[in-house]
């Protein structure tokens, strides 16, 4: 075989290898969907973040808008501190959005669902502040209102924002435990006569 054909074949081989790598990167992995640093970081505190993992999806309205990048224990408040990276194009999430940990399917993986708050927009925050001022809440409430109005410069979640309203993940054992204890107490109350009988037998 001449050198030229060999070289052409090697060229085809290298091109095929690189094309495969490119296909793996773009078509198979998440590189195309979510490229690294483009985005902003928000935080949320959960009392129970069990089952949640780094790289779990963060969704709003069922659409993935980001990923969990870090989960650590906050030793001051004794809760789990979850760091999320939201993609850059979703920069209009209201500040009063709430975060909940859900399970995909019955046994599926855990993910964070964000829900937009009732107001969130600038006018609403202003309105709220006005309302609170009219109602004449106590000193601390006034301070809170002022803070809200300050936040209102951008009524959206931004780099470093903390989501205040959170709902923990449902742990199956806890649920079952609750159910069982409720069941037992109701049985004791309802079957007050039956229990001694059972004891007598």
């Amino acid at each position, binding site marked *: 075989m001449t050198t030229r054909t060999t070289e052409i074949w090697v060229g085809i081989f290298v091109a095929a290898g690189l094309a*495969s790598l490119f296909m793996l990167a773009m078509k*198979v992995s998440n590189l195309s969907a979510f490229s690294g640093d483009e985005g902003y970081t928000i935080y949320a505190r959960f009392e129970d973040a069990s089952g949640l993992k780094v790289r779990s999806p963060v969704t709003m309205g069922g659409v993935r808008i980001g990923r969990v990048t870090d989960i650590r224990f906050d030793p001051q408040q004794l809760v789990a501190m979850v760091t999320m990276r939201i993609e850059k194009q979703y920069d209009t999430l209201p500040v009063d959005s709430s975060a909940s940990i859900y399970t995909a399917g019955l046994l599926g993986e855990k993910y964070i669902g964000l829900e937009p708050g009732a107001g969130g927009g600038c006018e609403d925050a202003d309105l709220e502040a006005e309302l609170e001022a009219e109602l004449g809440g106590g000193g601390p409430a006034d301070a809170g209102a002022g803070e809200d109005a300050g936040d209102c410069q951008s009524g959206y979640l931004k780099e470093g924002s903390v989501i205040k309203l959170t709902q923990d993940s449902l742990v199956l054992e806890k649920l079952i435990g609750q159910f069982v204890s409720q069941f037992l107490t109701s049985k004791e109350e309802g079957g007050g006569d039956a229990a001694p009988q059972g004891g007598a037998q």
Partner: protein
Amino acid sequence: MILATLQHLGQRGMQVFERLGRASILLSRILGGIHTLVPRFSLFIHQIHSVGVLSLVIIVVSGVFVGMVLGLQGYNTLVDFGAEESLGVVVSLSLVRELGPVVSALLFAGRAGSALTAEIGLMKATEQLSAMEMMAVDPVHRVLAPRFFAGLFSMPLLAAIFSAVGVLGGFFVGVGLLGVDDGAYWSQMQAKVDFYDDIMNGVIKSIAFGWVVTWIAVFEGYDAVPTSEGVSRATTRTVVYSSLAVLGLDFILTALMFGD
């Protein structure tokens, strides 16, 4: 009797260390000869052709079939749980993380490694290597280095081709024959497979395997007893040792990469 057995065992043990030492010295000489690759670049290209391009057919064909089998088996298991949408994840993760690098390295050892050993061993048996030394050409730089680096360069490309073709084979069976949803196959895959954690680790694995397989092949050829029987034994050893090394190394690398 016992003394003779002990003596024999000791001798064998010393031989193992001796061979390991010779192999390491040879590796350092090859790595030291990397600068000689530039003036002999066409040799390197020729070796990529014989090591990589000629392995392409077996890699592509087995990649397609491995992907198709994964599609079938994965579907049969997942459909019981109503989770056949996850077929893409099953196929792509098993290919990218494990089967792509490992199976292509095993095929590479059988197809290219044995050929390398036989070629170099025959060169030694016919005293071509000694002739080169007589002409003040270092056979390690002239013969071994291009082959070693060609193997090192080809292996990750072959593994990537194997994985990509396998994913397409799984797609063909899963979506084409068994009726898994087209969009779910790709979107679930993209949601679960991470570029750095999964694909780059697979590439790192295949580079390590290429390193080990070509090192063993080149050393066994260079170290072969220069007779026809010696060359045949060296070729067998190449396939056996490099397959075992690939599987053992795979366990270590997997434990390091995905262990946590």
